[in-house]
């Protein structure tokens, strides 16, 4: 019970900070929209490449990537907030006050979810407004958003682990760069089968590829690799939960 109360308090404060501060809220809304525009708008001719067989058009193809990207970066941006809390001393006071400190990590994770839900609603509304074609039904779309939530959870737990170990805003690139690379080493612009050379090899073993392919399958109404994608998402959440809790212990030891 105490854990949930702590989590609720941390989540409310973090979300309140984000929603009432335009410099935090606007980038998380504008950046995904910008990537969606740049990719779906600028590169739509790629759907004419021989072998490009995604049935719902390039806008839907890119929507899935941008949705997952926004989920992941929603988690990373929350990690920046954790680092800021450590830098300005708030997190130390929080560690002293919380009867159960696991609630702190849970609270940040809940805040990341809330933050991403705002972004996802906005992005989805824009995608439908520009005529995105969806072949899947409500269950398929629920599958897509659940998958994105798992990625959001994994990302915030990764970032929380880094932030709690390093406790400085200068850890930002360490949180961001690996995530950026893992995302972009997946089949971002074309289906996996159309990738050639080294990037095909990297994308094939990249766990994000499974999630992306499953997400695109949901939107097309032709679910594919669902078990593997959910297994990957859950494994990432589990692994980074351990990482985040160990980060919390590291912060506790640092005092």
């Amino acid at each position, binding site marked *: 019970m105490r854990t949930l109360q702590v989590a609720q308090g941390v989540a409310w404060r973090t979300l309140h900070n984000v929603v009432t501060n335009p410099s935090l809220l606007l980038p998380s809304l504008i950046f995904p929209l910008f990537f969606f525009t740049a990719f779906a708008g*600028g590169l739509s001719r790629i759907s004419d490449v021989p072998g490009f067989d995604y049935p719902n058009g390039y806008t839907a193809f890119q929507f899935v990537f941008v949705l997952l990207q926004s989920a992941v970066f929603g988690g990373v941006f929350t990690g920046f907030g954790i680092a800021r809390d450590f830098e300005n001393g708030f997190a130390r006071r929080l560690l002293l006050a919380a009867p159960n400190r696991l609630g702190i990590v849970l609270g940040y994770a809940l805040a990341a979810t809330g933050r991403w839900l705002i972004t996802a609603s906005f992005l989805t509304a824009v995608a439908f407004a520009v005529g995105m074609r969806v072949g899947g039904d409500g269950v398929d779309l629920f599958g897509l958003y659940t998958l994105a939530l798992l990625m959001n959870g994994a990302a915030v737990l990764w970032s929380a682990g880094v932030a709690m170990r390093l406790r400085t805003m200068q850890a930002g690139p360490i949180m961001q760069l690996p995530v950026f*690379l893992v995302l972009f080493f997946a089949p971002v612009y074309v289906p996996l089968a159309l990738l050639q050379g080294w990037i095909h090899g990297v994308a094939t073993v990249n766990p994000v590829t499974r999630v992306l392919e499953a997400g695109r399958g949901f939107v097309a109404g032709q679910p594919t690799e669902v078990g593997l994608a959910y297994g990957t998402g859950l494994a990432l959440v589990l692994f980074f939960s351990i990482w985040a809790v160990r980060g919390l212990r590291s912060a506790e030891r640092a005092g």
Partner: protein
Amino acid sequence: MSAFADQVYLLGRRSVVRTIRQPANVVGPLIFPLLLLAVNSGGLRAETRLPGFPTNSFFAFALAVPFIQGALFATMNTGTDLARDIQTGFLNRLSLTPMRGIALLCGQLGGVVVLTIAQVAVYLAVGYIVGVRLESGLAGLVVIVLFAILVGLGFGALGAFAALRTGSGEAVQSLFPVFFVFLFISSMNIPRNLIAVTWFRDAATANPVSYLLEAVRSLIITGWDAEALALGFGIATAIAVVALALSSWALRVRMAR
């Protein structure tokens, strides 16, 4: 004149040394554009199969992007360093000396030129290793270096202007996303004539960054394209002239004794 040259030299050396002492300021402008190049050239290679695509190597097509992206980093570095000079009071102390204000700007931009040359050398070397050969030959290489210096000067002066007007490193950093938007809404990833969405093609056509990219790209994959070079050099010169005029004015205001 000699005293002015000494001032520029000293401040230029300070700018270069300060950049070298902050590895993030050297590594970022070198590595990040190359990472994006690697990611995009791998992921978008299939684009070369589109009818009308100007080359069969997407890497060669995309090699122009790091030059412009590197210039964006130069903007941020120059602006952030100058803002720090303002925030720490260095500029105020400088205004108590006989040193001419414009020497500070020239010195700072001298540092940008040195970093730009280093970036160009790295990007061209990577391109050469991957198998890209300039269609414009050795003379084209010289033109690319000159063009990159001109673009670096222009963007560096823009960063200096932002720093001098705001006096805040954070404000300068917040410009980065704006420049990034200009980069992405351009012919960065696909030739303008192959962009299918009309409004995007129009935006890319109106975007000066498209012409900067196309000037470098023409030297790499086409050879000597007078129109692309004239547009590229014309726009780069215009940006540099306007940015230098603005930053000189802002410097006079900031250093009013």
